């Protein structure tokens, strides 16, 4: 058991990366496995620096492949284990993530998105959205929380551990380089003080007793011999995932009820949308925000309702339509026209959105 650092509410001015480490300790995470990649490094730095006080474990691995798989080793051993990565690291960590999906291992992966594809930039982007939501050679049986502030990173890192261990799906905190490197005030708290009880972890291997004597040996696998066996497994997984979805779906709206133009954005871009909404509202433009928080599973019903009410929709993201694709599939049958404001691996500010919305007012889109 790790030692708590935060026992009473403490306001700290720190980066998102530091925040993740503090939140993971607050969530009683036992061990982190990680590999250096920008813009994620300070999660590890902070975690390692706090070790003498927390007594938590840490291993710097030889690559992200190992970081992913050794994290799963920690989970299999019954520990609350996690890792953090970005960009190309996120790509190769999908190998471990797909094993987590297949074996229903509740690991937490924190992603600080950078520019893509390939090495691209170490700065910022939202181009790991599709990868994080649907990566791996499977069906995307994972939960993805998209954060928009450092406080969010604290709250949702804690929440991720509980979602993961309660429902036994791998769970992502999806942030970005801006959030990771930006300093903001964060109220750190002991989850218990908010009535949050940490879901206990259980060992798969090394449970009490001698295997084959006191209990059956644990045999866990991800390989199947025949199609029928796999199909049954996948159908069961889909049913379990669908059952969970309404219990964990989250979204946030801002002045969306009477919005004629509905802007759909996630993560830090949604914050820019808020500033644009305020500015446009002052000018009498009826605009609002719909921000999915869980990108997987998506809050489909509220999304469809908000879109149905609007006269136009604007998708904006620091990628070329990754969030839009996820949403549009779930908007099938709706006829609200939409426009887009995409900047791949580039920040989007309120002025960009104000300008775009005004343009939309002038020329009604029909696509």
């Amino acid at each position, binding site marked *: 058991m790790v030692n708590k650092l935060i026992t009473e509410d403490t306001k700290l001015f720190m980066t998102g990366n530091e925040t993740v480490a503090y939140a993971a300790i607050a969530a009683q995470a036992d061990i982190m496995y990680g590999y250096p990649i920008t813009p994620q490094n300070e999660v590890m730095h902070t975690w390692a620096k706090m070790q003498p006080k927390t007594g938590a474990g840490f291993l710097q691995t030889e690559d992200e492949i190992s970081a992913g798989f050794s994290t799963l*080793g920690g989970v299999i051993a019954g520990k609350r284990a996690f890792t953090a990565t970005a960009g190309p690291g996120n790509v190769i960590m999908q190998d471990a993530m797909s094993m987590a999906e297949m074996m229903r291992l509740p690991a937490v992966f924190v992603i600080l998105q950078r520019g893509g594809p390939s090495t691209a930039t170490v700065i910022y982007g939202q181009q790991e959205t599709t990868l994080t939501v649907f990566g791996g050679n499977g069906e995307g049986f994972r939960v993805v929380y998209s954060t928009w502030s450092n406080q969010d990173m604290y709250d949702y890192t804690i929440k991720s551990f509980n979602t993961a261990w309660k429902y036994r799906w791998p769970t992502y905190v999806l942030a970005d380089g801006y959030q990771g490197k930006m300093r903001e005030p964060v109220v750190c708290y002991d989850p218990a003080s908010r009535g949050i009880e940490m879901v206990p972890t259980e060992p798969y291997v090394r449970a009490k007793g001698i295997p084959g004597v006191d209990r059956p*040996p644990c045999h866990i696998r991800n390989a199947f011999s025949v199609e029928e066996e796999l199909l049954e497994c996948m159908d069961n997984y889909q049913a379990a995932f669908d059952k969970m979805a309404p219990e964990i779906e989250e979204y946030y709206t801002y002045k969306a009820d009477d919005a004629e133009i509905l802007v759909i954005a996630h993560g830090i871009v949604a914050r820019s949308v808020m500033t644009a909404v305020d500015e446009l509202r002052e000018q009498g433009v009826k605009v609002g925000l719909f921000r999915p928080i869980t990108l997987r599973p998506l809050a489909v019903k509220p999304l469809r309702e908000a879109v149905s009410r609007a006269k136009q929709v604007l998708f904006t993201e620091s990628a070329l339509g990754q969030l839009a694709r996820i949403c549009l599939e779930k908007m099938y049958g709706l006829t609200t026209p939409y426009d887009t404001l995409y900047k791949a691996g580039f920040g989007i500010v309120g002025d960009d959105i104000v300008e775009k919305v005004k343009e939309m007012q002038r020329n009604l889109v029909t696509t």
Partner: protein
Amino acid sequence: MAQILTVAPKQADAVNREIGPHKFCPGCGHGMTLNTLGFAIDDLNLKERSVFGCDIGCSLLAWNFMSIDSVQTHHGRTTPVIYGIARAVPDTVGIAYMGDGGGYAIGAQHLVNAATRNEKMLVILVNNTNYGMTGGQMAPTTLPGQKTETTPYGRDVKVHGKPFLGPEMVASIVGEESYVARGTVGNLRQLRGFMRKALTNVADGRGFSFIEVLSMCPLNWRTNNTDSWGRLKTMEEYYKVGELRVPEEIKGVK
């Protein structure tokens, strides 16, 4: 009329007797290696502390072979899963079981780094000079001149390089606290001794331990009994069987 054997084959307690005959091909060395591992675990009474991990390739068929806690992983990733477990629960005797492709090709970086970091775990690597599960392609360990599906005219060392000397490599990068050996399914008594030493070394929390096991793959080799055995003997000439590193503290372990 065929004679029915009335005496059951001797099986280790650490081997899962509920699964019936093993799933490996006739003449395969995996069953012999695993049963020997089972005996070594019995000898040291390590069932409770042991965690067995198996790779992709033929080794995955061992996922429920042992009567100890077991996890089947991805190709090349058994080593990180096992040290992930051992790092989380340090008195674990973690055993990563893999083939030559898993350990020397796709998972080589994990083998190298686990060895240099002195992860307290045992890697057992079965060398049958080819990729068995996928149908007999060239492996890092394929012998010079050996025909495989991807070297149909024989392994040409000028094109494909020389066979991978795993224990020699591991022995050169580990410290004095590591145990490194190469055994063979041609001498299971000796292999059991190697495994006892390696397991003791891990159980004592001393250091990374590594055993390569020379094994047979009659199906992909397309060899009968006599020729399989002959091929194993050829391998033993190329790959020297014996101990490469033995920590002082376990020299007395038999």
